[in-house]
């Protein structure tokens, strides 16, 4: 029977109306027209739509829309099969037709299986954008596509035989209830393949679980496994903490008979990133400075990269600041120390990229040491060691593969937000933001989301809390480091530190108990 244009829906496409006939089948119905057909198979827990050669007009889709609406209300899953090999000349029309349909149902299609001959890239991207909860599968080979459909339909018929079929006009409550009580949501079975990986390596998981068992059951690593846990040749003693790039374990280096900190990196250890990490680590290992955590070596164990570092007994500046109220002087000393470490790194052509209180260690003598150079992104950017003048913005404009700038937004410079650029001057910005937070107890810029934060850092002056006791000169020095245009900042960390030290000396003379 012919179908009229839709009642009150947005048009699904501007096609010429075509005679469409409907025929009921054992599991549903088939709509046929001169240019193709649409088969619908209804099952208790889902609906399969099989589309050949595209929609012809919106009226044609009406019964499908009605059915989809009804079944979605029951919590059913929808699967959509499409042969789009013959529609490559009218891609736009086709896309318009179906995407309206998808949009109307908020992408409730759980799976899309497509046979496509020549227009895969466009439609694949479109489809990937449209479906969110389910999966998409594209066949390039018609035979395999048809075999697959046959299997699916046969299975559908089989299940219809053992009366799991839910006739179109059956009571809705029944089907809904059945879905609700089913042990496994069908959708979950398929989508599991796109479940994100949690661990970069089996070793990361093993050690994480070991640390958890240690915390829950009070069993040390040694007690859990007599063979012991190890990262390369280093015997794991206990977990020290978790940072942005990985978990740090206190380890024993039996060969050199010393305690070290070993950071097992989250970053997946593929060839490219390994080469980069190696390169950066080499540069770090060359850098020896009292305010930089020394990197002894870098290694790889069971597919996981790790850094072996000097074991600093103490805490991070973040927990140090939170532990109790600190004197302005003490805070200034910590940041001057960390700043010297940062300046030394810049002098060696290294950029930190994620300077923040969490990345400053304070040892038992109160000395500040900067850690986690360059690796903050999980994948290390191009070698900055090639930049001759670290103060000059380098061409390192790498962002993650998803195009999302990864860093710690609260300390990120405007140009890092905008272009993903990191260099000595963005480090200077982060340094000032961290120091600002240390001195004022609040961050210089705030925003509800990334965009607002970026806007604040670009358009506003840093927030100064009322009644704060931070000297004006000190504030001005930090404000200069927080300028949105890198050219307006201090020429280098050295210059900033000079200015801060001068004020430090002056401040010590006049205002503190040291005077």
């Amino acid at each position, binding site marked *: 029977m012919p179908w009229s244009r839709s009642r009150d829906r947005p048009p699904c496409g501007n096609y010429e109306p075509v005679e469409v006939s409907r025929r009921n089948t054992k599991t549903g119905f088939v709509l046929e027209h001169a240019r193709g057909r649409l088969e619908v198979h209804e099952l208790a827990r889902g609906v399969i739509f099989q589309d050949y050669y595209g929609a012809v007009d919106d009226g044609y889709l009406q019964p499908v829309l009605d059915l989809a609406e009804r079944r979605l209300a029951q919590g059913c*899953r929808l699967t959509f099969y499409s042969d789009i090999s013959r529609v490559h000349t009218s891609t736009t029309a086709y896309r318009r037709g179906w995407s309206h349909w998808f949009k109307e149902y*908020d992408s409730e299609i759980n799976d899309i299986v497509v046979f496509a001959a020549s227009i895969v890239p466009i439609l694949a991207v479109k489809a990937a954008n449209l479906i969110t909860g389910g999966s*998409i599968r594209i066949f390039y080979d018609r035979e395999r596509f048809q075999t697959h459909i046959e299997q699916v339909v046969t299975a559908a018929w089989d299940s219809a035989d053992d009366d799991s079929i839910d006739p179109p006009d059956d009571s809705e409550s029944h089907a809904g209830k059945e879905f609700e009580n089913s042990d496994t949501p069908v959708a*979950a079975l398929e989508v599991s393949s796109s479940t994100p990986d949690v*661990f970069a390596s089996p070793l990361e998981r093993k050690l994480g679980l070991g640390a*958890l068992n240690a915390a829950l059951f009070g069993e040390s690593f040694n007690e859990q496994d007599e063979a012991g846990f190890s990262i390369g040749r280093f015997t794991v003693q206990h977990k020290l903490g978790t940072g942005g790039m990985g978990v740090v374990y206190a380890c024993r280096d039996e060969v050199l008979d010393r305690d070290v900190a070993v950071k097992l990196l989250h970053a997946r250890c593929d060839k490219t990133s390994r080469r980069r990490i190696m390169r950066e680590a080499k540069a770090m290992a060359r850098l020896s400075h009292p305010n930089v955590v020394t990197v002894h070596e870098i290694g790889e164990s069971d597919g996981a990269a790790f850094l072996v570092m000097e074991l600093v007994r103490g805490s991070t500046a973040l927990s140090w600041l939170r532990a109790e109220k600190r004197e302005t002087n003490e805070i200034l000393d910590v940041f001057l120390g960390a700043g010297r470490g940062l300046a030394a790194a810049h002098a060696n052509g290294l950029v930190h990229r994620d300077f923040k209180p969490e990345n400053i260690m304070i040892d038992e003598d109160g000395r500040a040491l900067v850690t986690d150079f360059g690796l903050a992104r999980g994948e290390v950017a191009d070698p900055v060691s090639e930049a001759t003048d670290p103060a000059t913005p380098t061409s390192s404009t790498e962002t993650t593969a998803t*195009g*999302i700038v990864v860093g710690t937004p609260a300390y990120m410079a405007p140009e890092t937000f905008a272009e993903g650029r990191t260099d000595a001057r963005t480090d200077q910005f982060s340094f000032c933001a961290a120091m600002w937070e240390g001195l004022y107890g609040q961050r210089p810029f705030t925003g509800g989301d990334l965009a607002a934060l970026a806007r604040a850092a670009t358009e506003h002056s840093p927030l100064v809390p009322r009644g704060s006791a931070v000297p004006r000169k000190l504030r001005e020095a930090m404000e200069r480091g927080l300028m949105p245009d890198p050219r307006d900042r201090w020429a280098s960390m050295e210059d900033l530190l000079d200015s801060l030290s001068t004020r430090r000396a002056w401040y010590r003379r006049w205002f503190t108990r040291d005077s």
Partner: protein
Amino acid sequence: MSYDEFELYSAWRAGNRKSGSILVERYYDSVVRFFRTKVAPSAADDLVQRTFMVCADSETAFRGEGKFKSYLFGVARRTLLSHFNSKHRQREDPDFGISSAFDLAPGPVTVAAGRADQRWLVEALRSIPVEMQITLELFYWQGLAIDELSVALEIPPGTVKSRLHRGRTLLRHAMEKIPVPDGLTRSVTVLMDEWAAGVHALVPESR
């Protein structure tokens, strides 16, 4: 299998470490994933630990009704929300039906360190209200059914369904909003292949 897990759980509560560590091992990955898609790695580690600790010690213990998994993720959810609440103690309590994990805990997460498509999905998930994110993840990744979700989320089954529906809409909009990076064409192709390789039969389970 819930009876088996209830036995393990009871033994754990009674002080049997072995039983405890079997359950911990079984759910470790899922619980880590639950937190790593929402907060920074350092916070995630603490919250994983706190979740299992609450399971072992809490007064609101699992009594064997329904599945242990529902109970466990109920605890994980409450642990996460109280973490967000405590982070925002200076301000008024956040509304988890509105605020996203990204709003509440900006900064990078490391769950999908390896794959661009996973990062993309996780970024989008983090930008929708956190209750929606939890619902979608538990449904799709942990395979909780509607009635199990209803237990874990402490809402009626009807609300679970409408939340799933609304969550998917928001997620799709979120994915459209995330800038399409240069690598996408390649990533999407890879993504298709990987999905295709991992996708099983697409029919609803025949019994």
